[in-house]
């Protein structure tokens, strides 16, 4: 926490603020969009309108927002099955995301992917991967293309603490360093791999940070509930990647307010833990931050209202949207648009 305190002091310096009002409002707005959309997804699940599974980022919004606001158009995001937040953070509409969760025809993939596979390449969202660790090497490949062609985009790969114990994590880290790829690995350490505390199943206290040295990378562990801190670290890592400085591994400490997935009431958590972390709710922290910087309650309320409106309108649009037509069942298996495996 000492690092966080130090950052807040720096941030509170006022007119010399390195982030600035416009970016701060963007960071807040992004977090609120994620918060409200995720909360709505949960409500719709309770109404049996969100089908299949879903993995919410309630409580973890600052990480997706911090990176989303730091990344440039053209930079690429690689997300996990807990990827609604990162998809929204790149500017994908709430309607497209909720539509996919509700498996309607207006969804991002018209219901063919579902909650765990959100992708919107026009926004640089290069897919959400539901097999733990799979997308770290894939992000390396996208970064290899940037390096090979001299493109200046950066690939940013988000994953949970549980991912640090799977082989692909270690293969990707070594590979990225050896090839000096413009890729950023962002570990969202929310303290639980799924139901089991990450500390119970990991050899080191910081699941990502303590592995960094094995790949010649500095240990970076930050407060993932403070969007300013995330944003600054993101800018640093993006600049490093863009200037051929190679990969970064950043561990962001955070906490999910809900269970692992929609089926999980999270009863394994010790009493009081959730309440303690809710004191450090990223949205709450950021509202206070805005006020420190002289943003008025009215400005904040305006953002809240605009976000609520977007989410409400999206919800209504999704409820009214038709289910996907069955003729898409057999499309896009192969690049010719069809599914033929024989003549």
């Amino acid at each position: 926490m000492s690092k966080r305190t130090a950052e807040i002091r720096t941030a509170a310096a006022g007119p010399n603020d390195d982030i600035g009002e416009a970016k701060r409002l963007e960071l807040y707005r992004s977090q609120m969009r994620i918060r409200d959309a995720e909360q709505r997804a949960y409500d719709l699940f309770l109404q049996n309108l969100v089908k299949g599974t879903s993995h919410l980022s309630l409580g973890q919004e600052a990480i997706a927002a911090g990176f989303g606001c730091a990344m440039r158009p053209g930079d690429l995001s690689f997300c996990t099955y807990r990827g609604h937040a990162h998809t929204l953070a790149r500017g994908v509409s709430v309607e497209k995301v909720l539509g996919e969760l509700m498996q309607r025809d207006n969804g991002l993939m018209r219901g063919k992917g579902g909650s765990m596979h959100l992708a919107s390449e026009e926004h640089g969202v290069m897919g959400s991967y539901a097999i733990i660790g799979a997308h770290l090497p894939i992000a390396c490949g996208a970064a290899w293309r940037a390096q090979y062609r001299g493109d200046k985009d950066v690939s940013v790969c988000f994953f949970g603490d549980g991912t640090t114990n799977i082989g692909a994590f270690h293969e990707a880290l070594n590979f990225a360093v050896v090839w000096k790829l413009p890729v950023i690995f962002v570990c969202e350490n929310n303290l639980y791999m799924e139901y089991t505390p990450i500390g119970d199943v990991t050899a080191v206290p910081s699941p990502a940070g303590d592995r960094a040295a094995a790949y010649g990378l500095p240990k970076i562990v930050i407060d993932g509930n403070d969007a300013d801190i995330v944003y600054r670290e993101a800018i640093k890592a993006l600049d490093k990647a863009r200037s051929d400085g190679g990969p970064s591994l950043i561990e962001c400490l955070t906490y999910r307010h809900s269970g692992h997935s929609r089926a999980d009431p999270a009863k394994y958590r010790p009493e009081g833990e959730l309440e303690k972390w809710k004191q450090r709710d990223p949205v709450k922290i950021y509202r206070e931050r805005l006020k420190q910087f002289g943003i008025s309650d009215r400005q904040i309320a305006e953002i809240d209202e605009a976000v609520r409106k977007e989410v409400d309108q999206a919800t209504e649009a999704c409820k009214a949207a038709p289910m996907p037509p069955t003729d898409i069942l057999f499309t896009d298996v192969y690049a010719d648009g069809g599914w033929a495996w024989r003549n």
Partner: protein
Amino acid sequence: MAELTYRDAVARGIAQEMKRDKDVVFLGEDIAKAGGVFKATVGLYEQFGPLRVRDTPISEQAILGAAMGAAMTGLKPIAEIMFSDFIAVCFDYIANEFPKSRYMSNGQTKCPLVVRTGNGAGSRFGAQHSQSVENWCMMIPGLKVVAPSNPLDVVGLLAAAVRDPDPVIFFEHKSLYPTKGEVPDGEIVDTLGTAKIVQPGKDATICALALMVPRALEAAEKLKTEHGIDCEVVDVRSLVPLDTQTILGSVAKTNRLFTVEENPRLCGWGAEIVSIVADEAFYDLDGPPVRITTPHIPLPAADILEDMVLPNAARIAETVRRSLGN
């Protein structure tokens, strides 16, 4: 026209495509400076340089994952998995990632890549370096699966695979690397999804793949000279897409079907062909379709044992002869 080995045909096919298109890049273990453990990629590093021909760590997941990320964003990677048995350690990409990303994303995600891999027995490497695993890949919707039997097909099908917009698993047979064949000069591009009748005949259709093709041809020769049985040998070449028209057409002519498969028996590719023929050409058949396969066991290392279990010309000929009642 030059006589090339199957191994040199691999390098020629890759070089042809890398010369044509700067987006074609190549990665794998020991493929660059060392020229590949099977010496199938000699000279590519020198010709195309370290940015396009890159050695990787022993990290099969990183190799296939990186190939996919590069393919999604505009390159056309060729990735080598040294032994096809190792597909098991990176099967997530083969089974879950390459073939499903386009479908799941409703057509957004592209995955134009080729995985080349050394497949098959004959080197006495035992159960984890000798398998024929083409059927592991054939069963997955979204992949294409190719296995050439001769140097000319290696060049042409490799070029077709590189130019194909879908993920293609390209099985090279390790025991075929030293075999030779005529390959014309100039650019060669074949067509995926086409089988080839490599020996016309009228009494029985023998479908074979990769190393089993020369063995089927040898058996056909034996059957003709020793028993007067005139076999048609079909080199299946491409398991997905599968050229069922050529196979059904052949069966319509010969009225008998045999498959010769190196894979262990259960769920081998021949079962699918037999099923299609039974379903669509049952009344063309004058007798039951017969599958000649490796038995359903892990492969042994000792040459005497390995030779006993792989289909060979004698076993193919004997099975066909007995089945035809000669």
